[in-house]
């Protein structure tokens, strides 16, 4: 399938291969880098699931998706990173709540790089010894995150918002859970989730889409994959209510940090409904507390926020929440002013039109950076959003819809707080 957006002058070519693997390409003439990702719909929240063939239930230690991501780089003859290095390409991978993504970026030898990417992700090699060794590295990675105040702020907020949904757990797991991981468990997760029916390839670069698709197709043909049905994931029943009103932690920071979260109960939110909810909620926050809002200026003038303060909405099929966060000298005063400001919020028609323009500009800017484009595409794809149709409903969004959304979402009983306090602070 080939689709072109005449206004932004971009084309997206997509094909689904017999193995179930989906390949998408955005040709970008003149771009020096070819940026390719190979992603699986398998993230940190997928530690409990049913095997698609037998229906057996499997429980594995938290942090295993991220552990698996690390281990795929290791092969009997060394580390696959050096295969990319040899070609001058850079490679990386990251694990999120919903997905695990492997990537390379290169200005040369892109055909070879693509084959290496496809091969290494599809050829696992886990031994008792190499799994044990990786635990030391991942432990250091986890400890590094434990020293990052922004990371703790978010992590604690998720624990406060969610009672049982695994988004409340750190993506990398904990030092204790990763110590339990065995090669057998890694293989079991691998066989289940790294099936092409559960994966997709995205490439942007100065490439011929048909050639890229043919190359992926040839690579797949060498492997004997039968289509696999979707993998049932087991999630605990998550109440609409929050888990805990407030979590505070002391760390060596100069200023306190405050995150205010609003839980947004969802059930199987995907596709256009999700796009619309994301756009409406984003516009709602921009109008209420965005940089040109009276409330933002009031807080800034009072010295309660700096210009990095902001609101963000995250939505996925099984969880959604908003976060307002930033550094502040006085979290209590900030919270009180925000509450009052939101209570008295006035949504303005002219500002709405302005923010719609801003949305268009920001969408366009996605196409400026090969990595960012791939990231956006993947995050859209896993949530069944169409990249070229994301803004379709933008013009039709009315102030009424914004106000309705505000009353539905911004509720005191769905709100939780996370707080990082400087060491030695009196409270």
């Amino acid at each position, binding site marked *: 399938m080939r689709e072109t957006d005449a206004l932004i002058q971009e084309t997206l070519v997509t094909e689904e291969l017999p193995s179930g693997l989906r390949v998408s390409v955005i040709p970008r003439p003149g771009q020096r880098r070819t940026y390719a990702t190979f992603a699986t719909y398998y993230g940190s929240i997928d530690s409990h699931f049913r095997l698609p063939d037998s229906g057996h239930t499997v429980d594995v230690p938290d942090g295993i998706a991220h552990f698996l991501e690390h281990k795929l780089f290791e092969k009997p003859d060394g580390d696959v990173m050096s295969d990319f290095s*040899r070609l001058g390409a*850079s490679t990386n991978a990251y694990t999120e709540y919903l997905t695990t993504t492997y990537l390379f970026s290169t200005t040369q030898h892109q055909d070879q790089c693509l084959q290496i990417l496809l091969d290494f992700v599809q050829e696992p090699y886990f031994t008792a010894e190499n799994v044990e060794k990786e635990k030391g590295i991942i432990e250091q990675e986890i*400890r590094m995150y434990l020293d990052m105040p*922004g990371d703790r702020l978010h992590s604690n907020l998720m624990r406060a918002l969610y009672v049982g949904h695994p988004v409340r757990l750190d993506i990398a797991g904990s030092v204790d859970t990763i110590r339990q991981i065995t090669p057998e468990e890694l293989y079991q997760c691998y066989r289940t989730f790294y099936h092409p029916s559960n994966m997709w390839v995205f490439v942007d670069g100065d490439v011929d889409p048909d050639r890229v698709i043919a190359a992926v197709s040839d690579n797949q043909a060498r492997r004997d994959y039968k289509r696999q049905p979707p993998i049932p994931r087991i999630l605990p029943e998550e109440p609409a209510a929050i888990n805990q009103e407030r979590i505070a932690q002391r760390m*060596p920071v100069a200023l306190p940090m405050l995150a205010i979260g609003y839980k947004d109960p969802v059930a199987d939110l995907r596709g256009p409904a999700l796009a619309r909810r994301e756009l409406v909620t984003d516009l709602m926050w921009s109008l209420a507390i965005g940089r040109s809002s009276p409330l*933002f200026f009031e807080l800034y003038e009072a010295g309660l926020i700096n210009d990095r303060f902001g609101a963000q909405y995250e939505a996925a099929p099984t969880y959604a929440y908003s976060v307002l966060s930033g550094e502040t000298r006085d979290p209590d005063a900030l919270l009180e002013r925000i509450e009052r400001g939101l209570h008295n919020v006035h949504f303005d028609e002219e500002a709405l039109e302005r923010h719609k323009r801003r949305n268009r*500009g920001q969408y366009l800017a996605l196409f400026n950076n090969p990595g960012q484009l791939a990231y956006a595409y993947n995050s859209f794809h896993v949530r069944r959003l169409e990249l070229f149709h994301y803004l379709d409903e933008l013009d039709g969004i009315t102030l009424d819809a914004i106000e309705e959304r505000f009353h539905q979402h911004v509720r005191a009983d769905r709100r939780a707080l996370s707080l990082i306090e400087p060491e030695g602070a009196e409270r």
Partner: protein
Amino acid sequence: MFVGSAQDGVSVYVYPTDRFKTISLYACWVGELDAASASLTALVAYCLRRGTRQWPTFTTMQAHLEELYGASFRADVGKLGEHQLLSFRLEIPDGRYLPGHPDTLGAGLDFLQAVMQEPNLTAAGHFPDDVIAQEKDILRRQIEGLINDKAQYAMLRCIEAMADGARFGVPRYGRVEDLTAIDEQAVAARWSEGRKRWPLLLFGVGAIDAAGFEAAVRERFQGPQSAAPLRPPTLFAATHDGRLVVDEEDVRQGKLHLGLATGVRLQDADYSALMMYTGVLGGFPHSKLFVNVREKASLAYYAYARVDAALGLMMIGAGIEFSDFRPALDIIRRQLDDMREGRISEEEMAFTLESFTNELKAEDDSPSALIGRELERRLLGGGPTSDELEASLARVTRDDVVRVAGHVNVDLIYFLTAHGEVPAGA
């Protein structure tokens, strides 16, 4: 390629290209990095973002940026060698890809001009008192907040200790104690006096007509009356003989840094050999530090070496367990010995060359990388373009790297650790 010219203290360089969906503008005044005035200069940048004659408040400015299709704007201070830069960055969506095809470039230049040259001043010619008080507060917290990013903080502390009061060690935002003492009138005075002295550089990347753009810029921006020529910074020399400096904070992971002197800067003939040295040692996943500290010994998640091309200063960093200080340091020292004694494989050389080549070519895809390299060259009074650098890297031999290695010396070792977790002998 950038085209343009330097005239009367105003340098205008444009990189016309159809590859991007946005137009990127970057303007900076080049001031001298100086301990006493660094925070005052930073405060000027912060106050300028608060309002212009046409858009007098933060709110009206932000609303205007939203009108400009969410143009992103940032006024800040930066540091390069011994220069302090007051920088203004504006990235505007290109009107060709927007409904109605508006001219966003002209509007963008108007905005930059307003911010830099027509601030919202009181009748007495000062920044409003409340604006100064608020921005002072923000800046103070910005400086105090540097500790929040532990890896960054450890690096800054290491550089500060290496500089020992020398100009290059002045933090880009200055010091809190100088900030507190600033009186209200000094800010506008610094701005108007700076404009008469500071060279102005302006870069544009995107679908821009170079000649028309240069004319439009020169029409809008006057140069300084008497700009001093840009001088390259002083070469960093080691004076601490590998002394250990330890900070204790409540952290879960130790940050080990080594500061080194290399004797080579961007404009020197050996610069590409130094780049190869740094790449083989710690620039990539195939490099000695990553392979030996992380992959073989499992002591760290990250381990790297970087070079500050303006000063010829190298920094090695790794995040480690507190008790692994000695083993990690020993492994790092062994890698430095290997470099000096030429234990560098053909493979390490070849991989490093390929990786740098990739990085340099990839700069073409990023407006900020393109501007960054051009800015560095203009400020340091020369140095290779990315194409020239690519060509000269390919000519570097192992002997060249070993020759450079002979001049690399550890100046200082810095360790950020937890309370009570101080390595023996420190």
